[in-house]
């Protein structure tokens, strides 16, 4: 194991003491971040031009540059960067092999077959490091007829199934295609599964000392992340229909999403299912001048109020709620609903989450810094709060090759 990296606080996370060599572009970089943020020492090996994620915007002040990609900043926290021309230079390939020989985990997202000519495939690596956990993230897995097919996030979400479930009712947007949910969610899901695989392999190594190879297919990760879609096929041979702003379903369901007075979407996920919360909702609506008819006894039965059963009461409630939402700002209805036991939400844009003090109460947002940014800026922090071994931001994403000399010196 190499010397501890200099000038940085020691890791508090549960993976402290583990060394990871990461050879990833945009597909696999989140997996490296998940390990690094929980204490692993992650060395990111980049080719001379840098990870291709460094060319993905948005960029600081919209000026492209290897150290200005906010995509890279976010997904490479707590890592160090070494530049090695491992594909073009046998000396550098040897350095990479040496790094992996001293590592616990090798994480890569290269196309199947490209590492064998460099003696960087699992068969070669495990000969000198039998405890190694080698995780290969690819679009479709290491074998099979699509193994060499190429994807983007959009293309992967289409093939894997999630995209087909997002979209619009024909009467809302005629001819609308299935919709690509943004944010690289195919890559994210691939990395969630890859990380699960690495952690299972780590448990296996803890108990047996044995390392192994992980074939992490994004396509498989996505194909088991479509909830009721797969179940309806298995049991009914039915493909669920995509709908505007709500779950795809075997049969059309009532809308959940309404446009509030301020233009934001208001998500109404059920309304007054039990009598206690119904009474609260009714009084609240009436205090705002809505739902006067709700006093009629026909609204007293939960069964009559239940949506999707075609009752006139249910239709009237939905129509009145729509009018109520359209007359108020989304946050007013959201908070008022939640305060009365309703799991309602507002459709916030990602940046609007910063304005909600609840997340600041929990210390969720953390600060990032980097090239051409004077003061630290906020970004999302921990996806989980650990009591004994907390998530931690020890260093920002590395500049290209920032730690090349430092890491080479440690190898000597």
């Amino acid at each position, binding site marked *: 194991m190499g010397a501890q990296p200099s000038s940085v606080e020691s890791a508090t996370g*549960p993976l402290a003491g583990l060394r990871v060599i990461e050879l990833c572009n945009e597909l696999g970089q989140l997996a490296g971040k998940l390990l690094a943020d929980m204490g692993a020492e992650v060395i990111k090996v980049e080719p001379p031009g840098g990870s291709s994620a460094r060319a993905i*915007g948005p960029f600081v002040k919209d000026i492209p540059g290897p150290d200005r990609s*906010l995509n890279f900043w*976010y997904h490479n926290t707590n890592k160090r960067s070494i530049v090695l021309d491992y594909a073009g230079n046998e000396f550098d390939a040897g350095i990479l092999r040496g790094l992996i020989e001293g590592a616990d985990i090798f994480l890569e997202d290269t196309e199947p077959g490209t590492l064998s000519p460099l003696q960087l495939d699992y068969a070669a690596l495990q000969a000198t490091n039998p405890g190694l956990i080698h995780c290969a993230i690819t679009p479709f*897995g290491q*074998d*099979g007829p699509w193994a060499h097919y190429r*994807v*983007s996030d*959009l*293309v992967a979400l*289409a*093939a894997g199934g999630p995209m087909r*479930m997002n979209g619009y009712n024909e009467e809302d*947007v005629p001819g609308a295609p299935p*919709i*690509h*949910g943004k*944010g690289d969610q195919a890559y994210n899901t691939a990395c*969630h*599964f890859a990380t699960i*695989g690495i*952690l*299972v392999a*780590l*448990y296996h190594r803890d108990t047996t000392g044995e390392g192994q*190879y*992980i074939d*992490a297919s994004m396509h*498989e*990760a996505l*194909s*088991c992340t479509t*909830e009721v*879609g*797969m*179940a*309806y096929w*298995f*049991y009914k*041979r039915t493909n*669920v229909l995509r709908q*505007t702003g*709500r779950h795809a379903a075997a049969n059309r369901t009532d809308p959940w999403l309404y446009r509030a007075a301020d233009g934001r979407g208001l998500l109404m*996920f059920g309304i007054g299912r039990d009598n206690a919360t119904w009474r609260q909702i009714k009084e609240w609506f009436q205090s705002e001048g809505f739902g006067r008819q709700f006093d009629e006894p026909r609204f007293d039965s939960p069964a009559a109020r239940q949506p999707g059963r075609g009752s006139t009461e249910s239709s009237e409630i939905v129509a009145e709620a729509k009018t109520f939402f359209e007359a108020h700002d989304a946050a007013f209805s959201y908070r008022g609903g939640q305060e009365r036991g309703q*799991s*309602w939400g*507002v*459709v916030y*844009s*990602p*940046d609007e989450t910063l304005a909600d003090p*609840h*997340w600041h109460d929990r210390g969720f947002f953390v600060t990032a810094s980097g090239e051409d940014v004077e003061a630290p*800026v906020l970004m999302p922090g921990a996806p*989980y709060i*650990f*009591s*004994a*071994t907390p998530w931690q931001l020890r260093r920002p994403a590395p500049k290209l090759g920032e730690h090349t000399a430092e890491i080479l010196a440690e190898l000597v």
Partner: protein
Amino acid sequence: MAALPLAGVRVCDLTWIIAGPTATRVLADFGAEVIRVEHEQAIDAIRLGRPIIGDAPTLNNSGFFNYFNRNKKSILLNARHPDGMTILKRLVAVSDVVVENFSNGVLESWGLGYEELKRIRPDIIYCSISGFGHSGRDKEFTTWGPTAQALSGLTFMSGLPGELSAGWGYSYMDHTAGYYGAMAVLMALHHRNRTGEGQYIDISQVEAGIVLNGPAILDYTVNGRRGRREGMPPGNHAWQPAVAPHNAYPCRGEDRWLALAVMNEAEWQALVRAMDEPEWALDERFATNECRLANQDELDRHIAAWTVECDEYELMGLLQAAGVRAAACQHAGDRFERDPQLAARDWWHHLPHPEIGDCEYDGVAPKLSASPGGLRSASPVLGEHTHEVLAGVLGMSDSEIDDALASGALM
């Protein structure tokens, strides 16, 4: 079958609906002994979830429940009955992990908060998944998957400009909060293996969603650019990297689509050749990525006029052979019946279920060479393992179990 990697890890599973059961599905798939603790008076609503196999729900014939709860055991236990709580505490004492996804404060109301769990089992790993987490001013607020998707920005980022959000057509954040739960438990197990120390993990489903939007948030905090602006979200057009063409194009037949993304100039040239170099594609309005972005709607119309005559799988093969990123936009039936990749990798499985009969399942991802996960049993019928667990795991005698039954603790 070789021992599964998490064999010997026992999980006291107090979860329901989807997020929690997804976390424990991952652990069960890799061999943990997951014991669902269920109560007839507070049944997991997913046991009634469609699709139902048969004429009416029986609590054991939901295909939805069966999908998320394979490889697990089920015991019936009333935690609000004093004898039931005594038995639950005995189960905690022999468990490595407790997972729950109740609303904030439910476990405390049972007298089974983390301090009590730790008193019973000092190295316990306690993982909670809730909407807003266990701290903060709105911790009493609650979520379902769609709520968390709306509040985290994920719903906003899925839609056509000027329209209501399309959002996610399923509870992506139930799946994903569950994945974070599984990762957290596995990390905590590694820490416990090294140090003997357990811990308490607090997961907010909304925070796990905000984590998936980092670059968009940095675009605001660094560049001051709001997500809510003209042209956002951009439908299937690319957000970042900004490239074109980038869309789903209609194909022959009803509701058939091909997803296609051209990421650079070489791929554009490959697409033009694959389309047989139509005259429009050689026009200077499409000569560079900047031009294609500026004329994207017209570009899309041209490509759609080509794809609409074709089968999307044939186009996928043609374009992939040419070096263009493209795929059929597959629904569940496509993946099961037409996807040669999933078939070639033995992705589909069968297991018998006493009420449902033969059940189909997807496989375990990712594939581990030395200690792969696997499928052992369909989802448990309600209380299927009560006697087995009470006798076999807790060492209760038949008369103790009879007494508990008579007292109403096991229902």
